[in-house]
């Protein structure tokens, strides 16, 4: 195993382990809400479990997986990982941070959910662990950037490989995002959680949280798009439709993923309507690159289907390799993301948001987007990557072929009823939807029960994934490794870097947009007469 592969796989296995634990919590939650008698079913454990599930899946699984993918991409496209010892330091920091936060959650002293909105106050270890996780990911950002800069020095004027361009986009988004998180956690929360400061302003803290929270979702999505654009066309037997346009898409994510956070705070007091409207505009702008992606990737797949002999308007679809789990995962992710994106357009609608904000709709929404479009793409990629870098064939290829379909079906069962229950007014994050038998709440119960069925299907699928990966690693003999190959563009892009390769320039523009979106409202929040709050730990 080469040092680079060891680095990639170390991150990868932490991601898989976090996923496995998070998925077990998930199925218990889904069953508990449906009123299934579990020996450990208490409100206390429910909210503890939701905290662990959110942290382990949305923060730990995604971050470690993306770090693994980032290292793999720079190693295989740029031929280098600059500063491997730094990379290991980052890995250990992030891992130790994960352990500390997880222990804090499991101890029952930090049941604040993964959004940890003050003045809910967790044990300081919860925040310290989370900080270490983020600092570890910053080291990853540094190594990624150093690798890219070193490559560019040696290849002046050459167009950077598309996959590296995409992963660097994710790095930049992450740095812009975590700047807000750092202010919230390091400046506002940590001193307060250890008692150095008495009080904290919840709306100010939330504003920094959502400065982070929205680009966080693009930090998840962009790496999935890297798989869709730079690998899937080749896996399907075709080529990438447009290399040049893909770069523009990535740059748009850098520009618009951060100045949008108020769309999570539409219902908040203390923030004037005009700023919420401005963030609505940027929110709709960020839908554009995803719409372009839908075209480009679908066109690439059509090209592949026709190259495989498909004819007619839809004939090419059947010719695609539907039993290849990487392909089917991404194809099903795309379908799911179309549904999730539609919901997103509703969530983002300035006034319509009041209909669904913090209802079960939202939980349906993000299980379609991050819980499927991103997660399922990562699952499929794992089946493709692991045999290549280790030389071990997949243990149960049949199981691997079926697993993405199971996830897709389970998720429809889980999410569609959640959306409907949300429209009927059921709140999210509730241990039970019964509300003491109040009549208005009775209609939610069958929906919660259907989504529990979805939860069980999802759990089976999750265990298939973890099982196939672990089995491959521990049971299968090592053979010859194979290279990680990327899709060729249909039209070779012109030589030389273009305006759309100037990542530094676009980052500067993005910072200007963030200042426009946030400077005035934050200034106003910080300077108006406020009454910050002491901490509460009602758990």
């Amino acid at each position, binding site marked *: 195993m080469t040092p680079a592969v060891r680095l990639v796989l170390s991150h990868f296995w932490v991601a898989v382990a976090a996923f496995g634990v998070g998925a077990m919590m998930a199925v218990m939650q889904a069953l508990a809400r449906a009123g299934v008698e579990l020996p450990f079913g208490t*409100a*206390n454990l429910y*909210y503890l479990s939701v905290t662990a599930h959110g942290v382990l899946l949305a923060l730990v699984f995604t971050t470690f997986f993306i770090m693994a993918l980032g290292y793999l991409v720079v190693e295989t496209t740029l031929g280098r990982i600059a500063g491997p010892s730094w990379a290991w330091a980052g890995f250990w920091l992030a891992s130790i941070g994960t352990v500390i936060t997880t222990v804090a959650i499991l101890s029952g002293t930090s049941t604040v*959910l993964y959004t940890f909105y003050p*003045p*809910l106050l967790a044990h300081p270890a919860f925040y310290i662990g989370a900080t270490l996780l983020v600092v570890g990911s910053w080291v990853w950002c540094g190594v990624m950037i150093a690798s890219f800069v070193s490559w560019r020095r040696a290849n002046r004027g050459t167009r950077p490989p598309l996959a590296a361009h995409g992963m660097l986009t994710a790095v930049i988004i992450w740095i812009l995002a975590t700047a807000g998180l750092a202010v919230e956690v390091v400046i506002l929360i940590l001193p307060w959680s250890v008692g150095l400061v008495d009080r904290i*302003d*919840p*709306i100010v803290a939330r504003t920094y949280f959502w400065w982070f929270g929205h680009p966080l979702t693009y930090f998840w999505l962009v790496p999935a798009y890297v798989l869709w654009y730079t690998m899937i066309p080749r896996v399907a037997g075709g080529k990438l*439709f*447009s290399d*040049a*346009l893909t770069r*523009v898409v990535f740059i748009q994510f850098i520009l618009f993923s951060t100045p949008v956070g108020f769309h999570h*705070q*539409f*219902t*908040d*007091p*203390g*923030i*004037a*309507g005009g700023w*919420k*409207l401005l963030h*609505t*505009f940027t929110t*709709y*702008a960020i*839908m*554009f690159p995803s719409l*372009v992606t839908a*075209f*480009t990737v679908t*066109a690439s797949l059509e090209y592949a289907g026709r190259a495989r002999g498909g004819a007619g308007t839809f004939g090419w679809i059947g010719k695609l390799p539907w039993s290849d789990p990487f392909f089917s995962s991404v194809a099903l992710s795309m379908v799911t993301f179309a549904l999730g994106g539609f919901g997103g357009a509703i969530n983002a609608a*300035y*006034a319509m948001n*009041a209909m669904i*904000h*913090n*209802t079960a709709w939202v939980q349906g929404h993000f299980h379609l987007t991050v819980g499927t479009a991103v997660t399922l793409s990562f699952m499929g990629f794992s089946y493709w990557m692991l045999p290549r870098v280790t030389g071990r064939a997949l243990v149960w290829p049949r199981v691997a072929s079926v697993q993405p379909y199971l996830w897709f079906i389970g998720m429809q069962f889980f999410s569609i009823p959640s959306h409907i229950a949300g429209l009927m*007014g059921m*709140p999210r*994050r*509730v*241990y039970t*939807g019964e*509300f*003491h038998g*109040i*009549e*208005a*709440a009775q209609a939610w119960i069958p929906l919660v029960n259907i989504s529990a069925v979805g939860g069980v299907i999802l759990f089976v699928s999750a265990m298939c994934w973890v099982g196939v990966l672990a089995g491959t690693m521990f049971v299968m003999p090592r053979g010859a490794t194979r290279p990680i190959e990327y899709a060729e563009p249909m*039209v070779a892009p012109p030589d030389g870097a273009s305006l759309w390769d100037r990542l530094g320039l676009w980052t500067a523009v993005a910072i200007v947009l963030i200042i426009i979106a946030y400077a005035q409202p934050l200034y106003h929040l910080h300077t*108006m007469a*406020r*009454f910050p*709050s002491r901490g*509460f730990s*009602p758990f």
Partner: protein
Amino acid sequence: MQVDRYERYWMWAASGMLALFLVAIVVTAVSGGAHPPSHVETINPETLDIGTEFATPGVVTAPDGSLTVVMRAELYVFKPDVVRLPVGRPVRFRITTPDVLHGFQIVGTNVNLTVAPGYVSEGTTTFTEPGEYLVVCNEYCGLGHHNMYSRIVVEAAP
């Protein structure tokens, strides 16, 4: 940059769709006053009981006849826990909390507010149907979060 013809059409269509969404939002915001709740007012959460309107939550009828419901959200209750209102009249809700974040969502209406200590949230609605409305807390506030609800009874005009 060379962009395929169909892709160009698609990009125009996508831009058109997004522009349409935005126009719809701006038009309803400007002409219909469809804004999210964005009230800006602060209050000391530790002294709500000392001479503020939140010391005695309930329905207040102004001299001009307009209705305001003053409410408090507290770890796991809304005060008052039953509110009686007439049908067909605009009602303004004013709500705050002495402890953590809560949500204030009247199921079946467009009232959906974040309630934060230190801030007063406002929302308005008109109940067009008599009946009993469920109010739920939709922001996690602690282990009793799922028990936090109240009722609004809307009575037909006499």
